[in-house]
């Protein structure tokens, strides 16, 4: 990957505690130009906190979060709750980013493939569509760094692939840096340059292949045995047998010999 000497974002030994509870301990990583960095980790690992510090929304207790000078940042928050009393169309929502024209809105909505909802009230669009709208907002204004908090949450499997590919395409075209949180390493594997496995501290980091083989990753998030093949297998089962998607936990009842549960 093309990597410049000065990173867009550089976190150095960032620690933070809320009250007496330590949330992050000496977390360091950087995001360079044209680089896609994915943060993974279990619930409560501090992923969102890292993201807030990276964005400058939160100050770390110790350590530093440096962003390159005068860069534009596009941010996609995890979820957004808009009061029903506020009449706001998707177009109006996107135009809240200063300097956005109607034409920009039209183009960006086409890019994330929800051009048809431009005039719909934001409160009425589906969860998956809203994710695309939020992503569109993050892409407006040609940002140098795009920060995405669980960008594919609530999007169907095919849509997830599509959105990850879109992120890659935009990186390729614009050469911007991308920092995102994801739950699913396998889904982002092909596109990610660097994976940071986080559990209050950086457990392991590196290329997705390396991280996937790391015992620390397995202890935290991995499946018993191999990763990808078994995971896909398990997924097929829960669909085939029941005809609808089941929560992972249910599988133990029906498929004990597969040991297909996560080892939490």
């Amino acid at each position: 990957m093309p990597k410049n000497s000065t990173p867009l974002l550089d976190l150095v030994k960032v620690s933070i505690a809320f009250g007496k509870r330590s949330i992050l301990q000496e977390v360091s990583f950087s995001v360079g130009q044209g680089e896609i960095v994915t943060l993974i980790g279990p619930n409560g690992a501090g992923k969102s906190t890292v993201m807030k510090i990276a964005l400058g929304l939160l100050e770390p207790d110790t350590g530093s979060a440096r962003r390159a000078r005068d860069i534009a940042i596009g941010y996609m928050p995890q979820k957004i709750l808009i009061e029903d009393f506020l009449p706001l169309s998707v177009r109006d929502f996107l135009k809240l980013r200063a300097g956005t024209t109607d034409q920009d809105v039209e183009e960006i909505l086409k890019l994330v493939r929800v051009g048809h909802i431009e005039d719909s009230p934001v409160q009425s669009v589906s969860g998956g569509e809203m994710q695309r709208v939020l992503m569109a907002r993050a892409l407006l204004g040609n940002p140098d760094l795009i920060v995405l908090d669980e960008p594919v949450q609530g999007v169907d499997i095919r849509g997830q692939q599509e959105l990850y590919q879109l992120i890659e395409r935009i990186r390729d075209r614009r050469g911007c840096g991308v920092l995102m949180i994801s739950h699913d390493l396998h889904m982002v594997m092909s596109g990610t340059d660097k994976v940071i496995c986080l559990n209050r501290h950086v457990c392991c980091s590196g290329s997705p292949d390396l991280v996937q083989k790391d015992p620390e990753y397995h202890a935290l998030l991995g499946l018993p045995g191999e990763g990808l093949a078994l995971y896909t297998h398990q997924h097929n089962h829960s669909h085939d047998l029941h005809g609808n998607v089941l929560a992972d936990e249910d599988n133990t009842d029906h498929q004990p010999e597969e040991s297909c549960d996560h080892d939490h």
Partner: protein
Amino acid sequence: MITELFPLDEFIINALIAGSMVAMAAGPLGCFLVWRRMAYFGDTISHSALMGVGLGFAFGSQNPFFVILACAFVSMVLLGLQRGNKFSMDTLLGILAHGALSVGLIVIALQEAVRQNMMYYLIGDILSVDQSGIFGVAFMMIVALGGLVLIWKPLLAITVHEDLARVEGVDVLKTKIIYMLLIAMLVAFAMKIIGVLLITSLMIIPAAAARIVSRNPVQMALFSMLIGVASVIMGVFASSIWDIPTGPSVVLSAIVIFLLGRLLPIGART
């Protein structure tokens, strides 16, 4: 009956003018209270206004400056408490509103002159507005609406998602402070007209009523002005026809419009 009222007495005309101008400033400012789920903020500020009146009298002055100062002080305390992010906005507003109210009531109780006029500050007296009162309200309306136009875009961005707006470069703190000061000024000038107990309703009810006919935020702000003015006109006439207190009848008129709007078969509901 209506013919008996024409030609209108001067005090009725003054009441209509002053009341309409208050409503025109209160509607758009109130829209943001509704959108930000901060309806109670209006009460917090108006309770603080009572504290300002008391303190003003203690210094021997009826200058609205004291009221603005008191409201601004409480607003800043709120912003300070909010930074910790530990308590919900609701609770903080409740604490501040009643804190300010209690301070105001005590300061007022210590002064004979204000104590006798207590009712006047609580529900206002729109029918006693004179020429200079109208000028004061006109000044307030121009500053409030002008100020709101200036911060409209950033304030709306913050209202939708504060962190997102901050990352995109909006000066969140400055925008919020300006907005709170505009509300403080509105309350300070509207207090003699509608009273501290009822001023919040002129911010909230026309805004809520405007929702059903509005398709975007600007429309809602404009409709809220219109509905506010209509409420003032209805309320003032109702009050002179049936000889009932004017402030409360303005508020009830607004509620009638809100309820009628709910009955409309317009598919604007989301």
